Structures are given as C-alpha cells and as structure tokens.
C-alpha cells in the first residue's frame, strides 16, 4: 500500500532522513522504532506532506504522491494522529471529529458511530472543549479524528507518549482492533517493546537511516534491539 524509496528529508542543512526505504502492505501493522531524534516523526510528516521530501519517492497504492499537497493526500486516504495529540483545543470534541472528516464528501455518521464505539468516553464528552480532556482522552480524540477521514492508511505518531500503563494498553488494544477490522497502520513508537509486540513487521531507525528490519517478534528477540531499545 505504501512504499518509500530512498526517501530523504532535511531541515535546512540538517538531514533528518537519509535514503529511507520501507514498505507497508495492506492490512499490516508496521512499527517504526528508534530513539529520540532518529527521524521517526519526520518520516510520518513527510508521508503526510507537511514536511517536504528532499529526494526519493513515496508511492501510495502504486502512485507517486511526494509532490502532492497535504490535503490531497488526506483525500487519497492517508490520515495521521500526530505526536503530542495536537487536538484543536478550543473546539468541542464533536467539532474535532467533524473536522477529521473535512475531506469527505459523503455523510460520515457510520464512521462517527464506530469511533464512539472504539472510544466511548469521546461520546460522553463530545460537547466539551478538547483542551479539557485528559491526556489519554486527547490521544483517543487524535486517533478518532484521524479515523473520521476513513483512511486506507493510518499513521500513528507516539500514541503511548506520556500515558499511564493502563491507558497505553487501552490505546494499543484499539490499534489491534482496528487492524482486525482491516485497517493498515504505520505505528511510530519510542515504546519499542509495546509497538513490536503488536506489529506484523518492524523497522529500526537510527539517525535517519533504517538499520534493521524484520518481523515484529523477530526484532523483539534480536539482541541488538533488546540492548539498544528495550534496555534488556
């Protein structure tokens, strides 16, 4: 579904992604792990089109999209729940979700029902401003907002960041459930053990390069990964 071919991206003269190639197949959860500053967020932003690609290709469903504007990519079926949640604070939960479906022309009542089914607390709090939600609820809202676009590919950036262990489990269980319903997910996480445990495949990113790739379980068992990212 998604293929990156020698993708490079830079902030000014600082190269953040260096010849990154990876693939996400339909129906997979692919985890992208690595330490802080490895380029994980840059990679997702480049796929979404809010950070320009310096060179290389991004193929989505076989077509190059690296020159398309961000809003066109959303319409094509790529939605992202960004790092740090980035909810629209002063707007109500319901308005945040409605904006998630901004690019859809058709009615989206079913999608809303599914999001409320996945995260019932959002339905309960739908009339209050998003900034009054707790961190975990804001994370659910950020994921729900991305789901409202009815994406083919869901990009999740650090969904577990700053959450209590119980909430992390709840969020990751929701990701597993989305996969069971047919969603394709590219998951970026610093919490490598949790991410690799639910992923079909994983990539390890280090200073902007892919240094390891393999099945999720295989990476979890890899001594290098265990030492560098799991602290074992």
């Amino acid at each position, binding site marked *: 579904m998604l293929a990156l071919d020698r993708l490079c991206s830079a902030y000014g003269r600082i190269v953040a992604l260096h010849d990154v190639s990876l693939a996400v197949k339909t129906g997979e959860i692919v985890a992208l792990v690595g330490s802080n500053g490895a380029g994980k967020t840059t990679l997702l932003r480049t796929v979404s089109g*809010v950070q320009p690609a310096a060179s290389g290709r991004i193929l989505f469903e076989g077509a190059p999209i690296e020159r398309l504007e961000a809003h066109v990519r959303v319409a094509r079926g790529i939605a*992202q729940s*960004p790092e740090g949640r*980035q909810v*629209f604070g*002063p707007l109500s939960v319901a308005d945040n979700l409605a*904006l998630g479906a*901004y690019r859809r022309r058709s009615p989206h009542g079913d999608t809303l029902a599914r999001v409320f089914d996945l995260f019932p607390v959002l339905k309960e709090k739908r009339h209050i401003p998003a900034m009054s939600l707790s961190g975990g609820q804001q994370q659910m809202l950020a994921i729900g*907002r991305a789901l409202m676009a009815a994406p083919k590919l869901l990009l999740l950036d650090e969904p577990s960041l700053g959450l209590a262990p119980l909430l992390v489990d709840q969020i990751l269980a929701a990701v597993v459930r989305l996969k069971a319903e047919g969603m394709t997910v590219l998951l970026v996480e610093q919490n490598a053990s949790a991410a690799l445990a639910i992923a079909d495949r994983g990539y390890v990113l280090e200073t902007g390069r892919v240094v390891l790739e393999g099945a999720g379980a295989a990476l979890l068992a890899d001594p290098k990964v265990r030492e560098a990212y799991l602290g074992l």
Partner: protein
Amino acid sequence: MAEFLQLVFSGLTVGAVYALVALGFTLIYNASDVINFAQGDFVMIGGMGTVFLAAAGIALPLAALMAIVAAVIVGLLLHRLAIEPARGASPVALIMITIGASIFIKGVAQLVFDKQFHSLPAFSGDAPIALGGATLLPQSLWVMGVALALFVALYLFLEKTLLGKALRATAANRLAARLVGVNVTIILALAFGVSAAIGAIAGVVVTPITLTRYDVGTLFALKGFAAAMVGGMGHPLGAVVGGLLIGLLEAFGAGYISSTYKDAVAFVVILLVLFFLPRGLFGGRTVERV
C-alpha cells in the same frame, strides 16, 4: 442626562465601526498571526468606492455591493501578492508588509479617486429621532443594525459551518489542520476576503456620518487595532467589546474634555492596556515571561 445619552449614541455608532474593524484584525490574526494594518483601507474602499460608483449613476445599493466586492478583491490580492510570498517571515516583517500595502492602497486611491472629502446621502433620511431628550440619526441605527447583523452572521459562520470550524481549527493548530486535510492557503485567503468585506460594509454604512477620503483608513486601522488590543487580540467577542468601549470613551472624551483630543483617547487606552492588562480584557491573566 440628555447630554450623556447623546454621547452614548454617538459613541456606540463609531464604536460599532471600530468593532467591525477590530473583528477584521481578529479574523486575520487568528488565521495567520498577521496584524493587518491595511484593515482600515478596506473601510475607505467601501466608502469611496460607493461614492464614486454612485456618482457615476449606479443605484446606491448596487454601487455599495460593487465597492464591497472591489474591497474583497483587494483583500485577496493583498494575501496572494504580499502575504503568501512572505510565508514564514517574522511577525514584524509581516506587519511592515501590511503597512507598506496600506500606503500603496492609499496612493492608488488618490489616483483612482481624488483627495477631497466625500459623503453619501443617509439611507433613510436625516430626520433625527428624539429619544430620552437626546436625538438619534436614522443612519446611526443603520450602522448599529448592520454591525449587529455582521456579528451574528460571523458568529454563525465560525460556530456552525464546517468551513468556519476549519478556520478556527487553523487558528488553534495549523499543523493539525493540515493533517486533517484543511487547505490552509485557502483558509487564509478566506480570512482576508471576509475581513475585507466586513471593513468595506462598515465603510459604506458609516460614510454618511463621518465622511470619507483616500486616507481615512489610517485612523480606522489604528482605532480598530486599539479595540482589538483592548479586547485581547484574537478574541472576536473582545474585539466587539473593545470597539464599543473605544467609541464610548472617545465620545465622552470629546464631549466632557475637548474634541481636540478625541483621537488621542484610543491611544491613551492602548497605553493603559499595554501597561496594566497586556493580554487585553478577554486574553486571560497570565503573561508570558521571557
């Protein structure tokens, strides 16, 4: 008492216009972080455009509509030609760009129009309405009524329509707005267009009372800016309250102290607000410390 009421009427009338200009500032500031000092020139284009089109024999309502459309086009061009190419520039640079644009618009207005003061006939005659010992011009009712209608329309647009919500979302978090598929460039153009329309409509209704000339935009911009600051830059309700407050203070200053210092009132208020309430009446009480 009658004198007081008289000053309240005139204060609310000009205050309504300042509030509209302040709303224009607020809309553009929220969407783009730009403080658009060409905001007052939209008021001028609305007034002068209507005067000259009406003088050319076009019926007043149509002339007003054409002038408003012209102001919207100027607003969109301002965004497209001056603001958009400087995307990512510092706020100070963007402010200087809008001041430059304002000077340019005044220069062109001198050529297209002239350097004389102009007026329009009042929409519903000049017979004053007696009210509590004071008198109220029918045109004042027009100004206040149109301002109220615009406030309500803008409120409904921002709160109830998906496009309005996208504008507020862009103001709240531009990155997230782009990620849900909002075309931010179009939203910014929309903010400039709507602000220009609001300013021009204010210009049309106020011209029968205050007269207009190619350079009236400067004072409207400064007072509208003061109103927006008093309310707390970025708060639509604050802009309205700030505008009415500046209008009333100006009227009281002119009536009870001296009309010589009428224009100074707004600036004294700005200084007081910056000293004591730097985030304005609606901007919360916390100040960013550096």
